[in-house]
């Protein structure tokens, strides 16, 4: 039986099957990866691109990786332009933001062209965070890096598998550059398996319905994405909006957003020069942040594809923090992406309160802890983002203990697994009940998490933002609380830190993480009395603060 008809139902079936294939690629990667940052944190993404590199469908995972793979694919297509450069069975890789890698060197993008016969019909892609890709510091990310060369091995959009055969020298070079070569190799093969599975599914799909129908279905899918976006865009308040905001490091970031019937223009040209350290991002990274917010504002439930993002226009100046110039370091790109995401959110929140809540803790709170597992003698490296509080909205209190807007279907590491795997103790994981986030609707709570080190020699690195200026409140709601760690050494003085690289640790030192409470919304004195009493009963606020801040006697 053949179905080479070009009707809308067939298109729909092909589009659903693309989604299923992207999800399957995601599941395969998740189950086989060796790094917890991939299999629990799910710092990874999968996608399917059309032959020109436009995003056709994306798998589950995290929103910040949707809209990365298309940019990488385009760079591969440009670079490998000669006939015979791209062949069936090939696999390409890039991790360099100056070569289509978008994010930072830890994230290796793997791309496979999909052929039916000699015809290129699609690309399957996968991006995942690798625990160590070399560079000056374990885990490859450090606040001390000033140029990208210090952040690890650069893969400038290269072929790693040719017609199904791994290019052995390239694979060896990748492996030998890592401090955790077996893990890197395992994770890289998991990524390759994932795109190969996608390849098989797409070939079967195109063979069944015919290549022309397959391609037409992708095209109509993107038109659908664009139609949805344009229609929802037209419902947003039109006009020009601007916001400047001081950062923890004293810099002032600025955004101007112009919304018209068919355009969503983000102007980030008026921003500071790129930093000396790794707190910079590529222009592509900023585009991903703009796409994330745009998608949330317009149509959070419909599929995200290249068409969905067509109305976005982005203006940047090369050489600024939001458009870094080679060879600037950008290991902490994700904090910058979050800053610009939060900046756009805050810029618009007051103008569309039914769509946007108050600010959330808005930092990945990337926490890197390394040492030797005292029971196995093996090196371990924890790379963990943290949970924090989300902002209150018109519809109610903010969510408690969730990953930041950058992450999505991401899972924290259970204490029991952490203790076994990494040989440290987790002494507590509790809600953060510090003051902050009070309002008619309360900001969600962040967490307090204690890691007690067992290893004799180890290190901790953190790079949190929103440590000085916490999540912002709305309409008289109070600001949230800051993100930081308290380092409590067995001997010596406690200190509060938000940014530190390679701080030495020893047995029984405690790294206590505090993540912020989200911004409140509305005057705390308007909060429902019963809710205040419940908060007191649940030990979230004291009776004293109930009286002082909310005006409720308990």
């Amino acid at each position, binding site marked *: *039986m053949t179905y080479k008809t070009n009707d*809308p*139902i067939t298109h*729909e*079936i092909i589009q*659903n099957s693309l989604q*299923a294939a992207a999800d*399957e690629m995601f*599941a395969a990667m*998740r*189950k*086989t*990866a*060796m*790094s917890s940052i991939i*299999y*629990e944190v799910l710092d990874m993404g999968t996608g399917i691109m059309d032959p020109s590199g436009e995003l056709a469908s994306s798998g*589950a995972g995290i*929103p910040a990786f949707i809209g990365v793979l298309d940019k990488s694919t385009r760079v591969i297509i440009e670079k490998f332009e000669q006939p015979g450069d791209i062949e069936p069975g090939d696999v390409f890789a890039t991790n360099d933001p100056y070569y289509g890698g978008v994010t930072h060197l830890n994230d290796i993008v793997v791309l496979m062209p999909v052929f039916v016969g000699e015809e290129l019909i699609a690309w399957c892609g996968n991006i995942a965070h690798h625990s160590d890709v070399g560079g000056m510091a374990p885990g490859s990310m450090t606040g001390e890096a000033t140029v990208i060369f210090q952040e690890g091995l650069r893969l400038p959009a290269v072929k790693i598998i040719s017609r199904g055969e791994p290019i052995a020298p390239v694979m060896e070079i990748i492996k030998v550059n890592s401090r955790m070569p077996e893990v890197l190799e*395992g994770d890289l*093969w998991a990524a390759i*398996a994932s795109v190969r*599975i996608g390849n098989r599914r797409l070939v079967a799909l195109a063979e069944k319905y015919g290549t022309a129908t397959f391609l037409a279905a992708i095209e109509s899918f993107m038109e659908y994405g664009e139609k*949805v976006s344009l*229609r929802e865009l037209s419902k947003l308040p039109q006009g020009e909006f601007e916001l400047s905001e001081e950062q923890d490091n004293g810099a002032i970031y600025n955004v101007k957003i112009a919304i018209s019937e068919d355009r969503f223009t983000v102007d980030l040209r008026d921003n500071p020069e790129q930093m000396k350290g790794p707190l910079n991002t590529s222009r592509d990274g900023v585009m991903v942040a703009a796409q994330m917010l745009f*998608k*949330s504002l317009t149509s*959070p*439930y419909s599929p995200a594809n290249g068409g969905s993002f067509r109305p976005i226009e982005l203006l940047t100046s090369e050489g600024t923090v939001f458009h870094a110039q080679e060879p600037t370091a950008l290991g902490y790109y994700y904090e910058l992406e979050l800053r610009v995401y939060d900046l756009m959110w805050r810029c618009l929140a007051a103008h569309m309160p039914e*769509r946007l*809540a108050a600010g959330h803790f808005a930092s990945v709170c990337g926490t890197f802890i390394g040492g030797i597992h005292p029971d196995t003698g093996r090196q371990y490296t924890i790379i963990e983002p943290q*949970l924090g509080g989300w902002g209150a*909205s018109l*519809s*109610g209190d903010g*969510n*408690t*203990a*969730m*990953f930041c807007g950058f*992450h999505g*279907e991401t*899972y*924290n590491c*259970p*204490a*029991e*697994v952490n*203790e*076994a795997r990494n040989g440290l103790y987790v002494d*507590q*994981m*509790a*809600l953060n009940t510090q003051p902050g986030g009070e309002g008619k609707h309360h900001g969600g709570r962040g*967490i307090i998490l*204690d890691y007690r080190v067992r290893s004799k020699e180890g290190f901790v690195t953190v790079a949190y933002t929103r440590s000085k200026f916490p999540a912002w409140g709305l309409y008289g709601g109070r600001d949230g609380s800051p993100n930081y760690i308290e380092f409590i050494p067995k001997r010596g003085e406690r200190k509060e830190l938000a940014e530190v690289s390679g701080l030495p640790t020893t047995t029984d030192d405690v790294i206590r993480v505090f993540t912020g409470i989200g911004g409140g919304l509305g005057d705390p004195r308007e909060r429902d009395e019963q809710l205040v009493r419940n908060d007191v*009963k*649940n*030990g*979230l606020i004291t009776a004293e603060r109930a009286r002082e801040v909310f005006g409720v006697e308990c």
Partner: protein
Amino acid sequence: MNETITRVATDIGGTFTDLVSFEFDPNTGRSRVRTAKVETTPPDYEIGMIDVIRKAGVDLAQIDFLAHGTTVVINVLTERKGVKVGLITTEGFRDTLEIARGNRPDFFNLHYRKPPPFVPRYLRRELPGRMDYHGREMRPLDISPLKRILEEFVDDGVEAVAVCFLHSYANPAHEVAAEAEIRRLCPDLPVVSSHSIVREWREYERSNTTVLSAYVQPVAENYLQRLNDKLTASGFRGSPYVMQSNCGVDSLSATARTPITMVESGPASGIWGAAELGGLIEEPNIIALDIGGTTAKCSLIENGDVRITTDYWIERDRKSAGYPVMVPVVDLVEIGNGGGSIAWVDDYGKLHVGPQSAGALPGPAAYGRGGTDATTTDANLLLGRINSEYFFGGEMEADMEAVNRAVEAVGRKLDLAPMEAARGIVRIANNNMVNALKLVSLNRGFDPRDFTLVAFGGGGGMHAVELAQELGVTKVVVPADAAVFSAWGMTMSDFRRDYIVTHLTDFEPHTADSIEAGFRELEEAAREQFASEGVPRSNLAFKRFGKFRYQNQEHTTEIELGDQRITASRVPAVREGFESAYEREYTYRLDAPVELVGLHLTATAQVGKLSIERRPPSGRDASAAMQATRSVDFATDGIHDTAIYRGSLLEVGMQIGGPAIIEESGSTTVVNPNCSAEVDGFGNIVMSIGI
């Protein structure tokens, strides 16, 4: 003396209570099957159960084995009708239940609501004391605060207590001590500890499972007690067995202690039925598909084995993180796609089917109860695949005017004629199910062409052939009495318990002894437990499984280890078994050490199982069962004049060529052109699929 063995299963569903009864005479080898169906009688479900037994004409006093399946647990959970629970946990971790895992599946939605915990913060209390991951005590447990905590619990109206401590999977001593103290202090307060349900790591999942078990426990225990009393009062002499989510049955008393294990028992019994049917017809590799009114469920059975996992969540989908229930549950994929699934067109002209369902009220447009949405059932009626003159076996009149209106409305939005729209609905519904079937087969490296599709539930036979064609499956079986197949599966189930424990170790020859010791410990525990239920040691059969992974990975692949001892010399062969299974699923192997992460032991005891006789062909031609001919639209297979057969008139050996439709009171089987059907010796409809 009456030597007939009678095995009966009753299955209480949302709408109907089903019964299947087998009577077997060992002297003559003759067996007799009866089925019956009555409406479910909430909230006194036991009344419907007695009704259905009476309706079937089964004498309660003559029943040797009675299995019972119920949705009471899942209903209590989804309707939030459980009791107020207090949680006792490890110092520093009372917020674990609320923090959960922090994930946001619906990640572009900035209005996502995190599922709230089942126990509020003030009822989550901590005790000092700590184990490490080896199960070694770091700090002793201090139970002295319990007295005050329990007093406060009682004041706050707590009706059940859950206890879950860190690393109790490795050493439950602290939980045992706390539970004993709670029982001493409050003998009437139900209490459940995590180790009596789960012996695996991950504290959030374990805590939530314990809390949900406590949440449903008093309600479920009360239900089981009433049921037992009613049965005894009505003349039943034994004790009923209760269907579990792991495809086995368990005793009433064990189920009453941790009823959460019943959570997915309905789907489990159908899938077990498919596995048993596979054994009967000598097809060990089965894809089971159960299409009901609101959902379709599927599962893969390899070599006669159903796959059991503890990675089960309720209320989890693309829009919600849901709640984990870490008990042994048959591995299945469920999608919101059944006969009552609503077809709808979004604002941009795309057609979708499900996951919203018209349910029983108003139901599909055809029910004539005011439903205006077109459902898959309505599309099938319009295409002539379901007989509008024989709707529900003629018990209900199909409101074809309402069907036309509903499907027309969908067509208008798509700019399609009603028949085109109906075809579209069926094709989209089929595609949704094909994607689910791929999840359990292709996604795990299995080629569906190597499997037989067993399709049941009200809609199984309706869609099976087209799904098989999509997947390249060449043989489809629609079981006899497909509409009460879950109850049939229950009559075939064994007394079964799954013991799954976290046991992390390198998998090397020198660790074989400790692994063997781990399995022995489980076997001993199983023997003791079964002995206390009156099952002799010799009646127990064990099967061992190991959960393996490459070092540094997280997720595991489960490998069957048979029932032999684990010795150093077996290690290489087991490793090879893991690696080949891994390669099949993920396409590659690694040169890395292998770890064992968990032990899984299944213990089963057969409780008087029956052998079912194969009947000889009647020798008559299928034309004897033919009722009429009518025009039927086969969606992608054209419109054909089609012979219509009455299922109840079919006899063993009858052969039917497609296109044909076989109508029974609760289900319809569609035999597409190029396909043929035959009634086998057990009354099943076996179809060969032409491409």
